[in-house]
């Protein structure tokens, strides 16, 4: 059983999702069964992820040959510290989203929980696989699940956003396949570790082809990660989705970021000969611009969900800046920041929904509307979440930003990174202060609504669960940053997967 540990996180959601479609759980009235099963699956997923992480800490990176076809011919799952950490994060976010959806979102359609499990399966699969074509397949799994989740609940705005989202991602998939074809035609392999070996042995003509393939991969991953100028879909899509779905989507941009880190460190990293770090001249300026555009978006947002979506953009930009520094320290800092920013973006989407429910027609728009029913509860949650997201001490946002800033190299890079991140932080504080003032203090009439619109217990549980992670991440910042530093070292050591996969080192 323990030998099969790397594939278990995928199997739990796959089999669980399929079971949820069967009679004991399917049907309108059996939603309680579905909820219990979905909760159990999420907890199981977390347990498996923790077991995987414990094993990776204990024994170093482990590989799993699917169907026992050995590398480089078979599909390989490769669990190192980074993959294990992100799988655990996915499970945790899945649990919080599922809990939040118990408040009623999951009853707007019959297939919410099964699709949610398939979505989790796609995300964990993308984190664990070490084969580029398999990465494409898991991308498609998570995308088709996200298409369905996005329209969950229906409505004009969601259909509209989904049309754009689907078309854009279908074109993205086509580009992904062309990139894979080019890379396979040049190197004759799809295994990431094997490709990293072949990359330095290419002739000059083949290098051009490999560069084209690599650049197209950057476009695809940039589209998923919402890197400028491929980010235009993100604010509309994320603010149209229902709250638990948008919260889960917070990790989807991280799938793109993870793929950029993996592919452009291992394949096109230090060992790629003439193609070493070929994407840096592009990613570094685009990352800075992404932060700037995200910050402008936060200032210009007409509602809280839009602010949340634009903070996702800022975090994407910050992560890409840390990627561009290209040192293990910076990568380790980026992984800590990725954990923090995923969790807090999810909280913001959920809070926007809870606040909106109590403000009647105005929902979460920044206009004068009726007073919220529970100003103390929501106000306190919003206040803490805002402090976390802008990075004020004593929460994880502060530590996340500090470690990213400290990792910067000297000179111009450092000046650019510091000024961009700090100015964007300041402007985000202003935008969030304005948002909070309007939402809680500028209301028409003192009387709260007589109807019972108070937040459901499940919603509070979901939000508090995610929000609790922030102080915990701040308290245990020492062990966590140590862990992410090890993860970064494992990622940057491009000989490590080669030896774990027992490939013929460097031979043709």
């Amino acid at each position, binding site marked *: 059983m323990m030998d099969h540990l790397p594939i278990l996180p995928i199997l739990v959601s796959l089999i669980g999702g399929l079971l949820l479609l069967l009679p004991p759980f399917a049907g309108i009235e059996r939603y309680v069964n579905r909820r219990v099963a979905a909760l159990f699956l999420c907890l199981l997923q977390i347990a498996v992820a923790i077991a995987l992480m414990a094993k990776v800490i204990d024994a170093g990176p482990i590989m799993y040959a699917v169907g026992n076809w050995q590398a480089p011919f078979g599909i390989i799952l490769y669990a190192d510290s980074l993959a294990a950490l992100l799988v655990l994060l996915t499970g945790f976010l899945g649990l919080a989203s599922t809990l939040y959806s118990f408040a009623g979102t999951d009853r707007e359609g019959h297939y919410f929980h099964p699709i949610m499990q398939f979505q989790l399966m796609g995300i964990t699969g993308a984190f664990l696989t070490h084969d580029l074509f398999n990465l494409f397949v898991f991308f498609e799994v998570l995308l088709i699940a996200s298409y369905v989740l996005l329209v969950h609940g*229906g409505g004009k705005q969601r259909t509209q956003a*989904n*049309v754009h989202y*689907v078309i854009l991602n279908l074109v993205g998939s*086509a580009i992904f396949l062309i990139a894979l074809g080019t890379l396979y*035609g040049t190197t004759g392999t799809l295994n990431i570790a094997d490709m990293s070996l072949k990359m330095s042995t290419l002739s000059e003509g083949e290098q051009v082809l490999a560069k084209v393939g690599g650049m197209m991969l950057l476009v695809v991953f940039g589209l998923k990660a919402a890197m400028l100028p491929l980010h235009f879909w993100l604010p509309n899509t994320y603010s149209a989705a229902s709250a638990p779905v948008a919260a889960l989507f917070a990790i989807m941009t991280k799938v793109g970021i993870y793929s950029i880190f993996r592919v452009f460190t291992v394949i096109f990293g230090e060992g790629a000969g003439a193609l070493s770090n070929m994407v840096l001249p592009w990613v570094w300026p685009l990352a800075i611009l992404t932060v700037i555009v995200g910050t402008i978006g936060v200032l210009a947002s007409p509602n809280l969900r839009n602010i949340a979506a634009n903070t996702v953009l800022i975090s994407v930009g910050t992560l890409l800046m840390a990627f561009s520094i290209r040192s293990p320290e910076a990568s380790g800092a980026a992984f800590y920041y990725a954990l923090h920013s995923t969790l807090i973006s999810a909280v913001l989407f959920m809070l926007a929904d809870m606040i909106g429910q109590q403000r009647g027609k105005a929902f979460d728009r920044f206009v004068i509307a009726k007073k919220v029913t529970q100003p103390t509860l929501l106000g306190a949650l919003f206040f803490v979440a805002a402090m976390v997201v802008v990075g004020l001490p004593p929460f994880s946002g502060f530590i996340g930003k500090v470690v990213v800033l400290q990792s910067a190299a000297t000179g111009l890079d450092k000046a650019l990174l510091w000024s961009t991140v700090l100015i964007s932080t300041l402007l985000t504080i202003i935008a969030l202060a304005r948002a909070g003032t309007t939402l809680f203090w500028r209301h028409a009439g003192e009387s709260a609504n007589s109807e019972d619109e108070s937040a459901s217990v499940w919603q509070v549980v979901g939000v508090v669960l995610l929000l609790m992670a922030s102080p915990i991440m701040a308290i245990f910042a020492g062990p966590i940053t140590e862990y992410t530093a090890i993860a970064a070292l494992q990622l940057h050591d491009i000989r490590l997967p080669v030896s774990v996969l027992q490939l013929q080192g460097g031979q043709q």
Partner: protein
Amino acid sequence: MELLYSLCVGVMTFSGVFLCLRGRTFPVVMGLMMLGYAVNLFLFSTGRLSLDGAAILGKSETYADPLPQALVLTAIVIGFAMTAFAVILSMRARADLGNDFVDGKEPPGRPKQSVSRWSSKQ
């Protein structure tokens, strides 16, 4: 053979991209299909084009790379499912939004005649 093959892929990609940039959902879905076909052909060619080559060792003089064939099969299945979803979604969008424009509304400043040119009523 190589020239003919690459011309086919190129023309299909061109048509696919052109159709994807149209304003209505039907041409866009057709464009996505075209693009999918072009990509499948392209993937197939990455194992190098060869005649009379079996994908099994020892069955013929030359043998073809079996991996691109497997990749194309996967890509076809996924592309098929995605096209089906895109078709259903555009029908849903037509019903929800009251028109078949990708942006959900008629482009401003567009003369009425060019709209009715495509409708079956005229």
